[in-house]
């Protein structure tokens, strides 16, 4: 046992007992405990197995620095792997599991990897498994076999498949000042910003505000620092312009002074209140940010430094101060700086036995010496720890006399009994956020640390985050010993044995030197070759020692060596927390006014972009093909109705509307008469076909443009772009009115009769409503606008009304169609009807075809230039061997397949693709399987035979290439 609970002290609530489990075993702790502190208090010393060598590891740090004690939390059946036990607040029912061990934490087979240490040193896998080997294990197969095993051995925790029932949400916040970190520096900054009257947000990742003041032994304004801090927090809380965000980690510093933070709203609770999210993502747009993120302690690297029981001195102090968890046995302090003396004194005061303070420096300051006296135990200056001993828990340390300048040892090795070795290699300002929004961090030789860089955004760093380590320099009225903040430049004790730099990734000091030997001498190469700093803690405790070792190997300074780049997030964030409200609600749904009707009618709804559209209205027992054939047939023989509300609709209004349309469409619109519609084609600026639709002239200055469903948004943006950037002088207003109008197309020989039965206020005969004419009337008392146009090739009308009346009008049309057995039809039938007519849609206007490829050249006006006209006649766009639109007829009586290719020869091995099939159907009108295709040479091949080649679906067969106008090529039906 390495730790125990002190009988008094700490900020835990001893009156409240909390029950939880770890690896299935029941434990208790107190309210206010972390999982780490409660387990340590219960005598647990091994928390996890390391990544590569599966070495037993205990708690090393306290808070987000922790590299070892990672656990998996399980709640609501959902697994949350790799959580630092030092950050988990315990609650009744908490269920945690250790990771990366088999069969158990105590006995882990993976530990044999440790014996193979030199074999699996940094980069070994680049040098093996290169194949080809013998026999069937060729090329990369040998590696893939090894990879399977490696993947299984690697990785940390295990994720599950169960969906997360918890909710997440985002909140957008605006403030004048965001203060990150609520230690003494953050509190002072927040108070002064708040006093100036601006809106202030103060965020801290801890559950309670106060930072290091919570466990500091310093006095401020004559009170213990913790009391002082509590007072400041209460004062801030009372101010209306201040928002406190505890349990909130600010993790990303993005452009425009936009900071991302995650609040752990209910992770510390047994159950969530109604509507309460698990976590809340804050997007904070701050006028200015104050980074008061404090500093983190780093270790010294020496052999055996990863044994459970070795921990950071500050962490040992914090565990004692906050949680009353103390080393059970004697404590040895190992340091290169004064701060550990505070830890020694604090630990002693809390009840720990200090056996020795081992300091690599030959001398120490008076203030430190005074603390050493207070702490008790031996003071061994000019000494270093050279090894540690014990099994899965520390029992003793080896100490030798040490010369700082030369890094050499002298004298005998001495063993000192110790249950805990508290190490301090000095402190590094937490420059993570600052570096995300700044230049390159600057190395301070005095502090042996990187200081915040020059800001590239509006922030300032204060307190320990800025390298101000003396409390008195942060808060006026602070009394603390006058310690020297500068550590000795000594971060490694080079002595035989495995000395760990990156605990989590098992990167040793030798690995760092090996990488250097192999030429990986840039810090960024070191990182990538050894994976140092790439673990879940992102090298919080390991980067600086690693850089120091690399610098020593290269003979450069740490300043020259530099540090790796800091990137969001500051510490790991749940993926769902960033998805926030889009977890479980990826994209909104768009519904037409007739959506509910379709569903009630049994339509199979299909996503189309964000919309849903009926695919078929299947009768019981019908296949999709039977259903669409029935629907399409009804249109050809009688009458059908289809919801066309999803078509993009754009109001183009203004004195220059017609002139505008002439420029954006290939054909002429200024000549269109009021009360008439015209089919229009748009090209892109590069001359390729873009979109089509009909545009209706409602008055001299009012047009209603329709676009394809898929392109509606893009076309709107393009029109706005052209209007704003190309022709700002045109008086044209563009408005999306897609949602204003419900649209129903009534198609079929009986369509006029259906309308006649329900439309009032207008004539419907050829005179009143000729082909492409528009009339206004009423259906069921609802004003409607009717245009006689046809996509199906039948006599057909599009009926538009206000969306709120869509269902009224639709139902009236259905009723009027009852005598003619009107049939609602879906996308499949719509597709069938258009294939029969050879009309193109997105599968043919696929961004690579031209108007000519699609035989729409008749729409290219020669009388005016338009968007795309300048580039549409380039040779490559006119080449005779381009893919052109044709029709196909299946000659073997079987269905064609969309996406099949067409080849000239009839054998299955033919690989001379001359094009592909874009759309297929069984044509009830022709009684055959037909399709549209884009084929090299296009029209020139009409009349010839070719073959379908669809190796993916094993469909091969002869086809005849025909005109794409399969049915009623002269259009007599729709005109008739």
């Amino acid at each position: 046992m390495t730790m125990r609970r002190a009988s008094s002290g700490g900020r835990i609530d001893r009156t409240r007992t909390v029950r939880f489990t770890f690896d299935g075993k029941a434990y208790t702790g107190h309210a206010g405990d972390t999982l780490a502190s409660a387990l340590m208090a219960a005598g647990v010393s091994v928390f996890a197995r390391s990544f590569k060598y599966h070495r037993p590891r205990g708690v090393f740090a306290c808070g987000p620095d922790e590299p070892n004690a990672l656990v998996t939390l399980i709640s609501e059946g959902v697994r949350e792997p790799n959580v630092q036990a030092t950050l988990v607040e315990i609650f009744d029912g908490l269920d945690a599991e250790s990771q990366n061990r088999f069969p158990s934490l105590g006995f882990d087979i993976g530990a044999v990897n440790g014996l193979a240490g030199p074999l699996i040193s940094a980069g070994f896998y680049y040098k093996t498994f290169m194949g080809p080997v013998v026999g069937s294990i060729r090329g990369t197969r040998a590696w893939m076999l090894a990879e399977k095993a490696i993947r299984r051995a690697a990785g940390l925790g295990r994720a599950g498949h169960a969906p997360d029932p918890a909710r997440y949400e985002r909140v957008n916040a605006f403030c004048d000042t965001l203060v990150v970190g609520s230690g003494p520096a953050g509190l002072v900054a927040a108070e002064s910003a708040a006093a100036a009257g601006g809106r202030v947000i103060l965020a801290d990742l801890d559950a309670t505000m106060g930072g290091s003041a919570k466990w500091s032994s310093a006095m401020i304004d004559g009170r213990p620092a913790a009391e002082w801090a509590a007072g400041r927090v209460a004062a801030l809380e009372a101010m209306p312009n201040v928002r406190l965000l505890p349990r909130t980690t600010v993790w990303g510093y993005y452009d425009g002074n936009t900071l991302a933070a995650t609040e752990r709203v209910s992770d510390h609770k047994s159950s969530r209140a109604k509507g309460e999210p698990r976590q809340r993502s804050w997007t904070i747009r701050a006028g200015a940010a104050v980074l008061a993120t404090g500093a983190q302690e780093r270790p010294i690297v020496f052999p055996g430094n990863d044994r459970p029981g070795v921990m950071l001195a500050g962490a040992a102090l914090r565990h004692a101060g906050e949680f009353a968890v103390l080393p059970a046995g004697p404590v040895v302090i190992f340091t290169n700086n004064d701060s550990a003396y505070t830890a020694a004194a604090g630990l002693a005061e809390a009840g720990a036995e200090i056996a020795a303070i081992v300091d690599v420096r030959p001398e120490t300051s008076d203030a430190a010496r005074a603390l050493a006296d207070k702490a008790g135990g031996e003071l061994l200056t000019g000494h270093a720890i050279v090894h540690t001993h014990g099994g899965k828990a520390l029992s003793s340390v080896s100490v030798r006399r040490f010369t700082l300048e030369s890094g050499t040892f002298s004298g005998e090795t001495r063993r000192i009994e110790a249950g805990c070795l508290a190490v301090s290699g000095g402190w590094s300002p937490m420059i993570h956020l600052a570096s995300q929004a700044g230049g390159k961090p600057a190395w301070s030789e005095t502090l042996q640390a990187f200081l915040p860089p020059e800001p590239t955004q509006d922030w300032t760093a204060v307190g320990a985050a800025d390298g101000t380590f003396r409390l008195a320099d942060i808060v006026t009225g602070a009394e603390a010993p006058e310690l020297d903040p500068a550590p000795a430049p000594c971060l490694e004790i080079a002595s035989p044995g495995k000395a760990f730099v990156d605990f989590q990734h098992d990167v040793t000091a030798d690995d760092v030197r090996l990488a250097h030997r192999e030429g990986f001498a840039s810090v960024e190469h070191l990182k990538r070759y050894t994976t140092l700093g790439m673990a879940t803690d992102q090298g919080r405790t390991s980067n600086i020692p690693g850089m120091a070792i690399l610098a020593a190997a290269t003979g450069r300074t740490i300043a020259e060596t530099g540090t790796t780049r800091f990137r969001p997030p500051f510490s790991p964030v749940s993926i769902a927390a960033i998805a926030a409200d889009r977890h479980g609600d990826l994209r909104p749904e768009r519904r037409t006014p007739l959506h509910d009707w379709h569903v009630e009618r049994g339509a199979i709804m299909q996503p189309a972009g964000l919309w849903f559209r009926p695919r078929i209205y299947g009768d019981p027992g019908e296949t999709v093909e039977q259903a669409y054939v029935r629907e399409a047939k009804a249109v050809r023989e009688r009458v059908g109705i289809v919801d066309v509300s999803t078509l993009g609709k754009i109001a183009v209004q203004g004195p220059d509307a017609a002139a505008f349309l002439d420029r954006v469409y290939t054909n002429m619109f200024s000549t269109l008469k009021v009360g008439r519609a015209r089919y229009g084609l748009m090209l892109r600026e590069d001359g390729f076909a873009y979109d089509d639709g009909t545009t209706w002239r409602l008055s001299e200055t009012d047009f209603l443009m329709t676009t394809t469903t898929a392109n509606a948004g893009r076309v709107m943006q393009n029109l706005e772009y052209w209007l704003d950037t190309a022709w700002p002088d045109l008086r044209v207003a563009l408005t999306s009115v897609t949602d204003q109008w419900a649209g129903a197309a009534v198609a079929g020989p009986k369509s006029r009769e259906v309308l006649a039965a329900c439309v009032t206020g207008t004539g419907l005969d050829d005179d009143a409503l000729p082909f492409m004419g528009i009339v206004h009337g009423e259906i069921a008392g609802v004003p409607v606008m009717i245009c006689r146009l046809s996509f199906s090739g039948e006599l057909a009308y599009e009926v538009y009304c206000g969306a709120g009346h869509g269902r009224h009008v639709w139902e009236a049309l259905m009723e009027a169609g009852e005598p003619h057995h009107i049939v609602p039809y879906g996308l499949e039938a719509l597709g069938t009807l258009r294939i029969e007519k050879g009309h193109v849609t997105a599968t043919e206007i696929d961004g690579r075809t031209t108007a000519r490829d699609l035989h729409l050249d008749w729409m290219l006006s020669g009388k005016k230039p338009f968007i795309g006209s300048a580039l549409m006649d380039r040779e490559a766009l006119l080449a005779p061997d381009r893919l052109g639109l044709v029709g196909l007829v299946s000659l073997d009586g079987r269905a064609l397949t969309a996406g099949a290719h067409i080849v000239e020869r009839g054998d299955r091995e033919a690989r001379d693709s001359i094009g592909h099939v874009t759309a297929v159907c069984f044509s009830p009108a022709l009684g055959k399987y037909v399709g549209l295709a884009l084929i090299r040479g296009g029209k020139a091949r009409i009349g010839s035979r070719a073959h379908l080649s669809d190796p993916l679906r094993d469909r091969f067969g002869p086809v005849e290439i025909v005109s794409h106008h399969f049915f009623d090529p002269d259009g007599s039906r729709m005109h008739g």
Partner: protein
Amino acid sequence: MAEPLSPLGDAWRPGSHGNFRDGTGVTLTETRPGSIVQVTAWPDTDDAVRAAIRDSVTLDLPAMPGSGVAGEALSGFGIGPGRYLLAGSTEGLETKLRAAIAPETGAVTDLSHGRAAFRIQGESAEWVLSKLFALDFAEAAFPLGHGRATQHHHDITALIQRTAPDGFDLYFFRSFARSFWHALCRACEDVGYEVR
């Protein structure tokens, strides 16, 4: 003629929902204005358009971007350069405006069916809306009568007017109404909300 149908369908569940620990945070209503009309001025006719609006429907819109007037029967606010959204409790607003604004002066576009309108009111209104939009809803930044054009996620365009110290009217593309309503209700759950 029948009443226009609400786009909310069965998503509209009147009554109390969510967490009432601290009382009702907000009330939600679908306001169903009789008219929603957009008016667009040409680059040189903004003053004329506002004058025409003032004279025809007695709504005196200030020139400042995003400003507006919130009234019982009629509200309006700027939604873009030279562009205004007007909402009235009764039908026929478009006809009046069309009569007053000739094409040479500006364009009048009827959106009565194309946009759904919700009202959110209550002490948590700002909190709830700040979950849905990247806007500063504090009264100093978003004063009474003013309007904002913004979006929910990437997909849902929203026009928002502050119509009370603790209340906002939201206008959306109708086809998104039900989806947005779901999102809105979800965002309200932690404060307790009443649908009326």
